[in-house]
Structure formats: structure tokens, C-alpha cells
């Protein structure tokens, strides 16, 4: 059998964002996978060096649209540590509340995307409809659906009132019921289970060696969660369980995420019931003495780490961001080997890829080179499709 290489991306219906996976297949079986980044670079790390600490909150928020709160919290925590601020309890609790609501929305979104990649559009529609509930809650709390902008250095920007609390509890009650229904459905519908069980195997040792993070790692049976390992905010005061699965496949990742959803509902309820009174923020200085800090955060997709170095001015010397998706790419390549072509979107979606999260380094516009070359379709074909690989697809059975 002859091998051919097919491009999945940078534009492909399975990918919601641009990334290029070069897949070498033999018949319907994937033999090798390679990943090429760089389609979505915005130069955020470079840009952060020329902006003040306050402006950078909103800059890091725009690293990702789905886990926007995770980046700001990670950044803000780091800056607070740099200038030694003690954030009031109420502020921390509201911050955690948004964290968990964001986790709920991200996991529901992911469940829908996974269903869509498996061709299960009804489940996709239903989960996304129910996700609107948590989106509305976030809008009520923060004033916007995607970029909540609730964090500021030294606390949070908005307080919570009784009506909002009630609405949150109501929404969580509804979502709890729905999530239980989806768990039942997702694990009993034969066509869906057939697609996700035993697909994308990542053994425990491989997961550890390749530095996988988040649900991908936990689905391989490793109990690692920054909220437990390295409690930030006030997570050490909140009772919750760490969710793992040992099937090491896509089904395991679904199970981990659904379990985490249920844990998140519990955390939200706990936070609302035990919300401390008091201030929500303290005043922050504009300039920060030279120091360095490593801030870690458990985003819905896994460990998010920011390294911040200050130099005495009101701008950081260096801000390094590592989003969870980048850490999961080596593991994904491992998972893609020897799977079917049909499983590629599912396996890739199972790490919950956020490509714009993972790519934030460099602006790509070359100022000197103004003229772009226009290639005709024929030239592109000649360039990229050599004639000998034209019709050599092999019979799959």
C-alpha cells in the first residue's frame, strides 16, 4: 500500500480555528501525524511588554474567547503576588464563581463539539441550547457573555447581589438535571459510544512523559489538578473531588468532563451559600518592584501557566503564557497514530483544542514585503500535488 499525505487544516470543517495537521494515511488508517502552528499568531507576548499591567489584563483576556477568565485570573494572581496584595475573601470567591461557571460553559461547549464531530448533531444542538443558561448567568454577573472582564488587580470589579445569587442557583439546578440526562444518553446511545470508546488511546506513561495536561491527562488515570495540587484563590477551602478515568480513550475524556461538570455545580452552590461578606477589591499600585513569579491555574482544558517578570516600571519585563492546548499537542500526535481517518476530528477535538490560545507569539505581517504573489489554482496544484500521487488511494478493506 502506498502512503499519501492529506492536509487537515488550516481550513477544514472539523477545525474551528486554523491549524495544520499533516496526516499520512494508508487506506483509511493514519500512519503518521504532524502539526504545524503559526496560522493565528497575534504577538501578545511581545505586545504585553509595551503595555501597563492594567491594560494587560484585557490583552491576556483576549488570548482566548472560551477560557478568557482563566488567562486573566492566572495573570492577575501573578501580578498580585508580585506586589504582595492580599485580595479580600469575597473577591476571591466571586473570582472562583466565575471560574467554575466558565468551566461549566466550556465543558458543555466541548460536549456539543465532540457530538458534532461524531456527527451527532441533535446532542450538539441540545447541549448548546442548555449552555445558553450558563452564558446568561455569566452575562448577568459580569455584563458580557464572552469577555467577562471581571478581574482586576487586587480583586474583582463587580459585586454579587441577592437576585443574581438566586438566579445562579436556579440555573445550576436546571443544568444539573440536564447534565445527568446527557450522561445517561452519551453512555447508552450505541452509535455514539461506538464512535468514542477505544478511540485515541493515550497510555498513562505516555501521558506523563509527553506532559499532557487537564482532562486529557486525567482521563489517562493520572490524578493531577492544579486546584488540588497548587490551590490558588481559595480552592483549599472548598470541598470537591478530583475526577479521573482510566480508560485512556475519548470516552474517558467525555466521562472526566461530565464528572467535572457535576463537581463544578457543587462548587458553585457551595460558593453561593458560603459567600463571605466584605470588600471585593483592594487598591493596586501602578509600579511594581523587580521580581518574578510563576502563576498556575486550572483552566477548563488543563494547566495554564503564566510567568511574569517585573522591572520596577508599570510595564512587565516579560510575560510568558503557556495555554493548555499547546501542552497537549505532543500527546495528540501520539493518539492520532494508527487511528482511522474518521477518528481524526474526534481525537483532535478530545483535547478541546483552542488554537488561538496556544498561538499568541508573533505578528506575521512583514512590513517590507508588500506585494503578495497570486498563484492560479493550476499552479498551486502543480506545486503541491505531484502527478504521481494523483490517483493512488488504496482500497480500505
Amino acid at each position, binding site marked *: 500500500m502506498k502512503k499519501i499525505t492529506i492536509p487537515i487544516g488550516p481550513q477544514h470543517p*472539523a477545525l474551528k480555528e486554523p491549524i495544520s495537521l499533516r496526516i499520512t494515511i494508508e487506506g*483509511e488508517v493514519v500512519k503518521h501525524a504532524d502539526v504545524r502552528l503559526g496560522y493565528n499568531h497575534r504577538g501578545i507576548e511581545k505586545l504585553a511588554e509595551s503595555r501597563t499591567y492594567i491594560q494587560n489584563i484585557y490583552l491576556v483576556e483576549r488570548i482566548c474567547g472560551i477560557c478568557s477568565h482563566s488567562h486573566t485570573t492566572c495573570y492577575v494572581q501573578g501580578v498580585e503576588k508580585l506586589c504582595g496584595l492580599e485580595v479580600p475573601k469575597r473577591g476571591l470567591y466571586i473570582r472562583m464563581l466565575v471560574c467554575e461557571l466558565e468551566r461549566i460553559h466550556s465543558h458543555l461547549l466541548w460536549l456539543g463539539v465532540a457530538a458534532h464531530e461524531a*456527527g*451527532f448533531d441533535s446532542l450538539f444542538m441540545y447541549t448548546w441550547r442548555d449552555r445558553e443558561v450558563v452564558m446568561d448567568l455569566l452575562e448577568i454577573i459580569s455584563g458580557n457573555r464572552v469577555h467577562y472582564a471581571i478581574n482586576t488587580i487586587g480583586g474583582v470589579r463587580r459585586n454579587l447581589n441577592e437576585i443574581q445569587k438566586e438566579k445562579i442557583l436556579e440555573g445550576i439546578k436546571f443544568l444539573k438535571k440536564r447534565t445527568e440526562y446527557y450522561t445517561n444518553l452519551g453512555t447508552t446511545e450505541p452509535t*455514539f459510544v461506538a464512535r468514542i470508546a477505544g478511540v485515541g488511546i493515550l497510555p498513562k506513561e505516555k501521558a506523563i512523559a509527553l506532559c499532557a495536561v487537564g482532562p486529557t491527562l486525567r482521563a489517562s488515570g493520572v490524578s493531577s489538578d492544579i486546584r488540588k495540587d497548587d490551590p490558588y484563590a481559595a480552592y483549599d477551602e472548598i470541598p470537591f473531588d478530583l475526577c479521573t478515568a482510566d480508560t485512556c480513550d475519548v470516552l474517558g475524556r467525555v466521562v472526566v468532563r461530565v464528572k467535572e461538570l457535576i463537581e463544578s455545580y457543587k462548587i458553585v452552590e457551595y460558593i453561593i451559600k458560603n459567600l463571605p461578606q466584605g470588600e471585593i477589591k483592594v487598591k493596586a499600585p501602578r509600579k511594581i518592584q523587580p521580581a518574578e513569579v510563576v502563576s498556575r491555574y486550572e483552566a477548563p482544558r488543563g494547566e495554564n501557566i503564566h510567568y511574569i517578570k517585573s522591572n520596577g516600571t508599570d510595564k512587565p519585563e516579560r510575560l510568558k503564557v503557556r495555554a493548555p492546548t499547546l501542552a497537549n499537542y505532543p500527546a495528540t500526535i501520539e493518539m492520532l497514530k494508527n487511528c482511522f481517518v474518521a477518528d481524526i476530528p474526534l481525537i483532535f477535538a478530545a483535547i478541546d483544542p483552542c488554537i488561538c490560545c496556544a498561538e499568541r507569539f508573533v505578528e506575521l505581517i512583514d512590513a517590507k514585503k508588500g506585494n503578495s504573489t497570486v498563484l492560479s*489554482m493550476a499552479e498551486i496544484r502543480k506545486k503541491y500535488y505531484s502527478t504521481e500521487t494523483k490517483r493512488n488511494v488504496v482500497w*480500505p478493506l
Partner: protein
Amino acid sequence: MAVIKALIYLLVYPGILFLFVYSTFCEWFDRKLYARLQNRIGPAYTGRSGILQPVADFLKLMFKEDIVPENADRTIFSSLPVIGLAIVLTAGLYLPLWNINVSVPSFNSFQGDIIVVLYLLSLPTLVLFLAGWHSTNFFSTLGGVRVLTMLFGYEVPLFLAVLSPAIVADSWRLAEIADFYQKFPFLLLFQIIGFFVAVVALQAKLERTPFDIPHAETEIVGGTFTEYSGKKLAFFRLMTDVEMVVGSGLIATVFLAGFSGGVFLGLLKFILKTLFVIAILSLIKAACSRIRIDQMVIFSWKYLAPLAVLQLLISIIVKGVIQ
């Protein structure tokens, strides 16, 4: 007179015009029902509750830019959509819609027309395979190969299931089979297994979830249709719609006792019965996730084919008891 009648038959009812109008209506019905099952609105703006949306889509595609890949065989690539559409339209003519008197066979109703319809319904699959193969795109080629692989899965169960009512009715003529079950409707109860096998096989033939493997968009982009655009894509979409009407019409004829009662009552029955079959197809589409090609072949040979054989056995026994 015969010529005029034949022309009306070919061009108006139940020929091209009727099939076009009705298949776009069926697509709207399918889309609307699918949307409502998913708690959405579905097509809403074109015409009353979006009823003209499929026509609008068709017209829009007709005016879109039409691109033929450089390396593709131009003639074959361009002619395949038309051939496919012609095949399914021809198959539509054999549905016993205008057979007021069964004892007088009209020119399109003859012994063995059920075989002809089944054969004509197999051809679009080959057209799709050729379309995929001639697109010279990796995704299309993969789609084409998947089309053919799937054909070996569902075709045998479909044939066995559709032919077993014919065995009981002791005829290979669609009008006669329908007429037979008009007289003995209770015999249809013995064909329930066959009905479901045929519906599932039709779902696979129409490449709808859970069998939309050849054009699974999240896996192989557009599959067979990746390189098709403009008019050609419009024809292909129309071909699938007409195929859905003809396929559900065939199932309605052999399993739901056909469309007796003259032109108007027959038309009403035709619409109701095909919509019933399409509703089941939509429900299956909404309730399942796409399976893999290997799982599909295993499913067909492990469950569908044995069930079809079982149905055949039941039919033979029933026939023996009747006689």
C-alpha cells in the same frame, strides 16, 4: 393522444416537474422536522415558514461560480450530475402513481418494474463513486471509496427486504403488489421487519446520519462533493432529494399498500405515505451519531442482512400458508 399523455407523464406528472416540486417540498419537510426535533426553528424566511428555502438554495447554487478541477476529466466530471439526476427521475416514473386500472398495464408498468426501480436506485451510488474518483481530490477519492464500500453493506439487505413483499404478492409488478396489499392489508403485518430493514437501508443509500460516512464533513470535508460547486452541486443535491422521494415512494408502494384511488386520491395517499417514511428517516437522522465505515459494514452484515433473510423466510412461510 398517447403522445400527449406520454409527454404529460414525462414532463409534468409524475415526471420532472412534479418530482422537482415534490422533492424540494420533501427536503423542506425533512429540514423543518429535523430542526423541530432539535428544538430549532429551521428554515423560516423564504416563503411561508421557509417552504421555498430548498428552491431558493437550488436557484442560488445555479447562479454560483462553477469550478472544474484542473486535473479532472472535464467531460465525465461535468456530465455525472446530469446523468445521476436523469437516472433518479427515470426511476420516479415507475412509481405506480397513475395506474387507475391495475388490470390494464400502462406503458411504464410491467412485470419486473420493481427490479428496474431497484436497479435504477443503485446507479446513483455508482455515479457518486465516479464523481468522487474523478474529482482528483484526496478527500473526494476517499469519499468515493467509502460510497462503494457502503454499497456492499446495504444493497443486499435492501433488495431482500423490498423483494419479500413481492414474493407474497406473487408479482414483480409494483402496481400489482400494491393492489394485492390493498386487498389483504393484514398481510402487511408480516412485513414489519422488512419495512424497518428497508428504511434503514434507504437511510444508508441516501447517505444520511448515521450513514453519512461518504460526505462526513468533519472528517473528509465534503467527501464526494468536495470539488463540486455551482450548477453541478445543485443537480447533485436535487438528485439526492429525488432519490429520497423515489426511495420512500418505493417503500410506500411495497410496504404501505401503494396509492390507489385515481389521480387525486392517489396523489394524496402518495404524499401522506412518503412523508411518513421521510419522517421516520428524519427521526433516525436526529437520533444517531455517525458511525465509522468499518462499523457500518459490520452492522449491515451482522444485523441488517440476517434480518432481511429472516423476513424472506417469513414471507415464504406466509405464502405457503395462503396457498
